[in-house]
């Protein structure tokens, strides 16, 4: 399996515009070695200073048979089977060959889906039980903090992680908060027990950059500015103008290597990587008119927006999102708490979907993320009420394939297809039913959650002593 390292050397050596990363074959273990010590080479001398140390957990070859497979890659396979081997999905179909050493699980007519993916999480950065000591999500000291990275706030002992795993979440993007115009880098994590955040980082996942529109930045910085939406836009543009100049300085130096290299600026390193196409923009933006403006800003400076987050008005510009290839990370059923969120409607997911753009159910909530399936069901119902039929085969993509795409990981996760990572959920019933729960959850073929084996359930360090041990219950 190939992993895309954040290697920019080849790209930067090309004649401008050097916009694509060079895919370098590497596996998870060499990921860490290859990217070290490139000091002085490019504007990101070491593009991966906090490399993933994730190793898949021990797994056994497993067959889950007699299940309905919502694959997110085609029509549901009724009464089919799936083979997990060496951390990958080896086969999916009406039947699969079960090797002699395989653990065979009879699903008894239950459902199997890909592991769910939440593009908008603050687990670890707003860890439970909250309070000043764990309030690490917003570096609200400056409207532009492109220099901060969410992973440096993530507390792996956040008790919200095991609860999300029990909700079927296998991958999540942890974002900085939305106080700032540019809030910092995201971290794409596997929902696994680990002593370190590096041990949770999804090997080879690109970073995201959090941007925020509208009310939050102008409220937080009212006294020093930006205090208005026009101030917000001026702030984004000023940041990108600086980043363009920074990138040019480094690209020029990389071409001729004459004289001392330009000095490094952490924030501009991140922004320059966005301009080079190596970091995805995840843009908190509620209103349709602001989304259109953010698209113009992206075009002005030559980057792409990968996903609008919250997007309660995405349905108003669904055609624009489809045309621009921008996904909508949205709620099925939340809005109203501020003026820019007033136009949230339940049919948002279905309307965006019907317009041909990628709908994603996101959570922005540690409790909501445990029920992305239920939210997708609401989105289907609201679509039906408006005359838009969304099949289960399509709606499952809202919580699997589409979020995988928005993280640039759709070649690895998000569907049940041979060759994909074995991130799999076995449900107690149809996942769109309010009564269904994940029974077992696998990540890279390793069963990390099993509702029937409560004693072995993952408890974080924090929970020991602080939180009553109720394993065997809901988690």
């Amino acid at each position, binding site marked *: 399996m190939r992993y895309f390292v954040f290697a920019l050397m080849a790209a930067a050596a090309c004649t401008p515009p050097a916009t694509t990363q060079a895919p370098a074959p590497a596996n998870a273990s060499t990921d860490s070695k290859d990217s070290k010590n490139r000091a002085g080479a490019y504007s990101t001398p070491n593009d991966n200073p906090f490399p993933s140390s994730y190793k898949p957990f021990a797994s056994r070859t497993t067959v889950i048979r007699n299940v309905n497979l919502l694959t997110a890659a085609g029509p549901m396979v009724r009464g089919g089977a799936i083979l997990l081997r060496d951390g990958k999905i080896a086969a999916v179909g009406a039947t699969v060959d079960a090797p002699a050493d395989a653990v065979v699980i009879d699903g008894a007519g239950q459902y199997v889906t890909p592991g769910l993916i939440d593009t908008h999480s603050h687990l670890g950065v707003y860890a*439970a*039980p*909250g*309070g000043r000591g764990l309030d690490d999500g917003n570096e609200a000291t400056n409207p532009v903090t492109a220099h901060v990275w969410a992973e440096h706030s993530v507390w792996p002992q956040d*008790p*919200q992680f095991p*609860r999300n795993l029990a909700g079927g979440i296998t991958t999540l993007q942890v974002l900085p908060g939305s106080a700032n115009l540019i809030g910092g880098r995201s971290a794409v994590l596997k929902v696994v027990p680990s002593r370190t955040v590096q041990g949770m980082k999804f090997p080879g996942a690109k970073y995201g950059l959090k941007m925020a529109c509208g*009310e939050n930045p102008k409220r937080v910085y009212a006294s020093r500015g930006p205090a208005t939406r026009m101030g917000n836009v001026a702030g984004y543009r000023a940041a990108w103008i600086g980043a363009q100049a920074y990138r040019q300085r480094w690209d020029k130096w990389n071409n001729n290597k004459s004289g001392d290299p330009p000095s490094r600026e952490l924030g501009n390193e991140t922004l320059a990587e966005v301009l080079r196409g190596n970091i995805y923009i995840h843009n908190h933006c509620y209103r349709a008119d602001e989304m259109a403006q953010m698209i113009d800003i992206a075009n002005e400076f030559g980057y792409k927006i990968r996903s609008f987050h919250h997007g309660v008005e995405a*349905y*108003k*510009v*669904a*055609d624009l999102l489809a045309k621009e290839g921008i996904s909508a990370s949205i*709620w099925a*059923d*939340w*809005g*109203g*708490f*501020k*003026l820019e969120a*007033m*136009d*949230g*409607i*339940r*049919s948002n997911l279905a*309307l965006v979907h019907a*317009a041909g753009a990628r709908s994603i159910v996101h*959570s922005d*909530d*540690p*409790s*909501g993320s*445990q*029920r992305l399936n*239920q939210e997708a*069901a*609401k989105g*289907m*119902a*609201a679509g*039906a*009420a*408006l*005359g*838009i039929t969304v099949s289960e085969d399509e709606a499952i993509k809202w919580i699997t394939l589409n979020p995988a795409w928005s993280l640039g990981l759709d070649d690895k996760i998000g569907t049940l297809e041979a060759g994909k990572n074995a991130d799999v959920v076995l449900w107690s019933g149809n996942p*769109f*039913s*309010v*009564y*269904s729960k994940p029974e077992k959850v696998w990540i890279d073929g390793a069963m990390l959650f099993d509702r029937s084996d409560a004693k072995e359930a993952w408890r974080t360090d924090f*929970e020991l002593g*602080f*939180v*009553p041990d*109720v394993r065997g*219950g*809901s*988690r």
Partner: protein
Amino acid sequence: MRALRNAAALLVALASPSLLEAQTIAITGGKIYPVSSAPIENGTVLIRDGKIVSVGANVTIPADAQRVDATGKWVTPGLINAATTLGLVEVSQENQTRDASANAGQDHVAAAFTVWEGLNTTSVMIAPAREDGVTSVVVMPSGGLISGQAAFLDLVDGTVTDMVVRAPIGMVGEIGNKASAGVGARGELLVRLREVFEDTKSYAKRKADFERAQTRDYSASRLDLESLIPVVEGLMPLLLRVDKASDIDAALKIASEYDLKIMIVGGAEAWMMADRLAAAKVPVLTGAMNNIPGSFSTLGSRQENAGLLRKAGVTVVLIGNGPGDPDTFGVRNIRQEAGNAVAYGMTWDDALRAVTLTPAELFGVSDRVGTLQAGRAANVVIWGGDPFELRTLPERVFLRGKAVERTSRQEALGRRYKTLPPSYRTP
């Protein structure tokens, strides 16, 4: 304007019922869940002049009745969400639309605060709840040590007076929230509560002396003490927002000391006190969608809370504790709470009761709402199937016998933008 017109119409109707043409509706063929009795297959609910007149398998349908075919559908009482700020908070970030918390001053006691009297009857948050089958709500104030009084409302168009089913239905207070009560320690909060109750009892006996300034100083205002008299007399329930097990213990102790009739609201760790709550006959209003140890008061949060409490014999009302502002924007999600309660151990029948009859009984309005029985207000929902399933749509909603039209902003926006670009003509 529409709301005003309807309000006017309703007032006329109430003032002179003889002028109103008898409106008779027969909902036929559905599976009926009266809640007060066993489900009825292929039953009929007969509605006249806003009230249910009969429910059963063999109801004679008058010739003039408008028939609503509910064959294959489920018919339930309108759902009740018993902990909301509907009409009190519209856009929570905009202070001008926030009216749920009194400025209680130094004493942090706002017992006289009748929150419903400042309710915005045209709040855009109301219609979506009603369209999704929530026909009644409790509106509760928040903040302070004593937050104020709560009311039970039907979500009809009209004035507050039209909406009120009963008010007040209880006094709301908080235990375990130091900042809100203006104290430095949990124990101090209990001292303050006792002081307020002692002052209330003293004031109740010595009103004349108080008017002549012949009493000691009291720690709350005259109006607040006056409002607390029914609480210390055990006539008005005290709804205590409290989560932590040790705080629930303290609440039980105070209730026993003063013979108070208390209810627990929130109760994240109530399951740890289930037997005590059952023995003390203290009801719990809680949700089934939160298992986050989100504060040091809720470390024991779990989704089985409601089911475990029921098993122990506690009276349980389901309220919202999931994401999505369950007391405003998400009021309609009370059925999702019920579904999750079932997924985590409550029986389906108990869950339906916990969002219909149980809250009606607790708040003294079960003669008006909460069941499908003759004489009750015709708050009736026809569902496409199991109301707790999120893919089930409420197909018809009747509120006091009147069909609810899907006229909310949310509906209008969806229709307007179904085709892009929108035409901007009447959707």
